[in-house]
């Protein structure tokens, strides 16, 4: 059955320049947006409404991404900008304020992503200076910084955390012990690589180097997990390709790529649904497509979302991937 995509709310952000990111909070009640107009805005979008809650000024360049922290830590939003800064905003008594500003990067910070809440309040930041920073909240308004220098030559474009679920935990018998989580995240960069980083004894190490793209990796998205044995990462690139990387072994060493599709234009963004069974792909042709893996392992486009019309347009049924 083909999915139905229907616009239920059109939020007029009043941004004065290009919008670069829009993210809903955990409960789907608030929408954060950011733009080349240097602002970050937060809207209450409950019941189809759009009430501007906050217009956050503080960046001195285009703001590329926003990321909501898990609500157990309060209402916290991170933003990153071309001005080389990462700002963490927090709502206190109904007012949004800057709570921390990180200026440790030498170039545009392109991506921010919060770690699973199980690990505490940790933010990964990828920058055009090639480095990835990990900011951990240590309490009392203090943040500890770890930096992976030269993670991606010329720049890191995207970071995405692995879920805090031990692969296969759904199937295997629970041992009764607290699962031994290994912190991992994926990053994509201008060296055409997807890399997987792993924390060992408090140090971040490059665990895997995934090579398949022939141009900049624009986005990576580690799929949410319900505890099945397979780990999955989606990556998209300037070369128009979207790859689905899967790893079946527990050690996390053997990743294999599968080409989802080769688009005619740059692919900017990939995003998994919460249940990880649908991948949304956003490309330079201004089209959003939804993809789903069939039982036989083939990825098929199940919907074309036409933004302008705000609904489902012609659905390309059975548009198979072109291997």
């Amino acid at each position, binding site marked *: *059955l*083909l*999915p*139905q*995509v*229907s*616009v239920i*709310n*059109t939020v*007029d952000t009043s*941004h*004065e*320049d290009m*919008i*670069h*990111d*829009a*993210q*809903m909070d*955990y*409960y*789907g009640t608030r929408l954060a947006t950011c733009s080349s107009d240097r602002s970050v805005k937060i809207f209450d979008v409950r019941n189809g409404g759009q009430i501007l809650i906050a217009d956050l000024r503080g960046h001195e*360049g*285009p703001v590329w991404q926003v990321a909501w922290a898990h609500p157990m830590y309060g209402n916290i939003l991170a933003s990153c900008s*071309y001005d080389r800064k990462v700002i963490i905003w927090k709502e206190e008594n109904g007012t949004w304020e800057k709570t921390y500003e990180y200026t440790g990067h*030498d170039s*545009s910070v*392109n991506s921010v992503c919060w770690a699973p809440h199980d690990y505490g309040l940790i933010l990964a930041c990828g920058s*055009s*200076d*090639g480095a990835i920073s990990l900011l951990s909240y240590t309490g009392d308004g203090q943040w500890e910084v770890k930096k992976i*220098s*030269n993670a991606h*030559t*010329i*720049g890191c474009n995207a970071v995405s955390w692995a879920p805090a679920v031990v692969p296969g935990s759904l199937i295997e018998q629970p041992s009764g012990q607290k699962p031994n989580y290994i912190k991992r995240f994926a990053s994509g960069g*201008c*060296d*055409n690589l997807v890399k997987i980083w792993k924390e060992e004894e408090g140090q971040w190490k490059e665990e895997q*180097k995934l*090579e398949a793209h*022939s*141009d900049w990796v*624009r986005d990576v998205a580690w799929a949410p997990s319900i505890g099945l044995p397979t780990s999955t990462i989606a990556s998209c690139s300037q070369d128009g390709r979207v790859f689905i990387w899967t790893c079946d072994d527990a050690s996390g060493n053997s990743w294999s790529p599968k080409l989802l599709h080769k688009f005619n234009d740059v692919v*900017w*963004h990939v995003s998994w*649904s*919460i249940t990880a069974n*649908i991948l*949304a792909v956003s*490309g330079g042709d*201004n089209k*959003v497509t*939804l993809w789903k893996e069939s039982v036989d392992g083939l990825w098929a486009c*199940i*919907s074309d*979302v036409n*933004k302008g019309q*705000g*609904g489902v347009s012609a659905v390309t049924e059975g548009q198979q991937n072109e291997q």
Partner: protein
Amino acid sequence: MKLKEIERTAVQAWSPANNHPIYLATGTSAQQLDASFSTNANLEIFEVDFRDPSLDMKQKGALPASNRFHKLMWGNFGNGSAEPSGVLVGGGDNGVLTMYSVQRILTSKGDPVIGQTEKHSGPVRALDFNPFQSNLLASGANDSEIFIWDLNNFSVPMTPGTKSQPHEDISVVSWNRQVQHILSSAHPSGKAVVWDLRKNEPIIKVSDHSNRMHCSGMAWHPEVATQLVLSSEDDRLPVIQIWDLRFATSPLSQLEGHTRGVLAVSWCQADPELLLSSAKDNRILCWNPSMGEVVYELPIRSQWCFDVQWCPRNPSVFSAATFDGWINVYSVMGGNLEAQQRTQADKISSSFNNLDPFGTGQSLPPLQVPEQVTQTTLIPPLKKPPKWIRRPVGVSFAFGGKLITFGHTKAPGQQMQQTYPHQVFISQVTTETEFLLRSKELQMALQSGNLLDYCQGKIQTAKLPVDENLWNFLKVNLEQDSRTKLLKLLGYSKEDLQKKITSCLSNGIPDKQPLPEAGDKNAGPDQLLMNSSDDVAAVSSSSAFFDNLIPQNMSTLEIPVTEDTDGLISQALLLGNFEGAVELCMRAERFADAIILAIAGGDKLLKETQKRYFAKQKTNLSVLLSSIVQQNWQDIVCMCDLQSWKEALAILLTYSKHEDYTQLCDMLGARLESEGDAALSNDACLCYISSGNVERLVECWVKNHETSSPLALQVQAL
């Protein structure tokens, strides 16, 4: 941020944008000599691999060249088939133009030189591939000499028109980026000529009246067809002029920032707001030409850069060739040189080849290279965020199957004026659409109680007859008088059948049809199956064969619905029309069937049927049967032969209801008393006893036994 370096005094050429991996070709520079005074010439190809963090570039191919190079160009010609990696064209001294197969250089197989001409005079300093037709190459040399080469036919060049006067060197040729038949050439005198290849003549000449321009570089605007820049090598006028051919009398604007003559310009194809220039003031600047401001500056170097070139594939990367013999690759995204230091440490570490060079059994700790603070020069990135980093569209999933989308709308033909919509769309994605829809419909129907409409809707949308039937039945079930309607759905209308039965009974049609014989049970279904088709005979004979194969007890129930008696009976039964069915049976003298059916049809019908049956059957037994069945005990009592009074009494005892019993016994007794002889009169007493009618008993007894007897008294006492 410096990414790569190689020590070469050479001209350079990037591989085209569609080539992967990225290569940089270098050819020994013609007009420079180092201290060795060597005049050897080499052509080399390096892979620029950014996965490798080191500053080194891997040499992927090399060959000695016959001439040193003034200019090197890498084109897509033959890409995809004959030359999968395209071709390199080098311009040398003495009018030599050489074409190389990149594939052959990389694989070291075959002669890499696939074409060479000496048609030009003097050094060939200007070369450019047509961006639309990869087989077209423009070249320029001395004496205003411009040739257009078709690489498919390399021997015979064309000219764009009559040579411009006065004759002078051609420093640059450049194809328009929008209109494929427009070519421009620039001359050291500061003059630029625009040629239209369709007209085969120069169509416009651009020159500054100051006459101090000394053209070193020229580039067309990547997106605006009428704009180009000219750079001036003259130290007195170290500017870059922006010209628009629509107002070709004077430059649109001048980029002033270099303090000495500009040696080279390169316009970024990925972002028209980025223009690189290198000058004799040792600086490399990146301009936003539309704003006239410097957006990036590479720190002062010790030597001039005579050439800068954007990397066509990786937009934030450019290469610069210096007179002191280095080719460097930089990123405009800023960063510091920390990476370089680490690389040096790695280099030293790896030079030991293994981690335990002394065989101590312990691996060496990583080398600690002392940090040189002076080297960590921070290079700020481009002031203006480049176009390629600005993500224009996006999508993200959120809780509850919500999909957030936003993006630009690219209006066709409006490349310069993009509108940025400020809407963000929140959509609901439902994957099991139909399922949810159906569930919703059902919920609504259940809530409103309007189930009939719901069913009706289902009936209308049903695709299969089976589904339609199902929904019809469900619907009817929910309606009043559902049974009748159900029967109608089955094709049985009571009214219709009544008519049939009536007509059947009146016409007597079923009588004409012989009833199925006991041994001919399959005939019915057979006839049904065969209906009235013409080839009944043939088919029935063969089907009879199969019938015989089927054991009798295996045959399934088939309900005949034909127009004969059987059919009509069964139809009547299907509709519960017992009266009709019984009537038909009676008519066909199938009494057993009739009675059985009448039993099912209720008391009234049964009695009726029994009555009719007994009316037809006139035997002794039948009277008895009739009486018993109809519970007409009075008849028995009144009509029975008095000799059978015992039996009559037995019947009464067995069947008659309590309240009737006394009366009936009395009646029997009375009959015996009055009609019978003495013996029978005595028997009458028994009847009275049975009935408990003491008075009549005593009376009868007294009548029969004149003498009073103790018995009489006893009985009375009782």
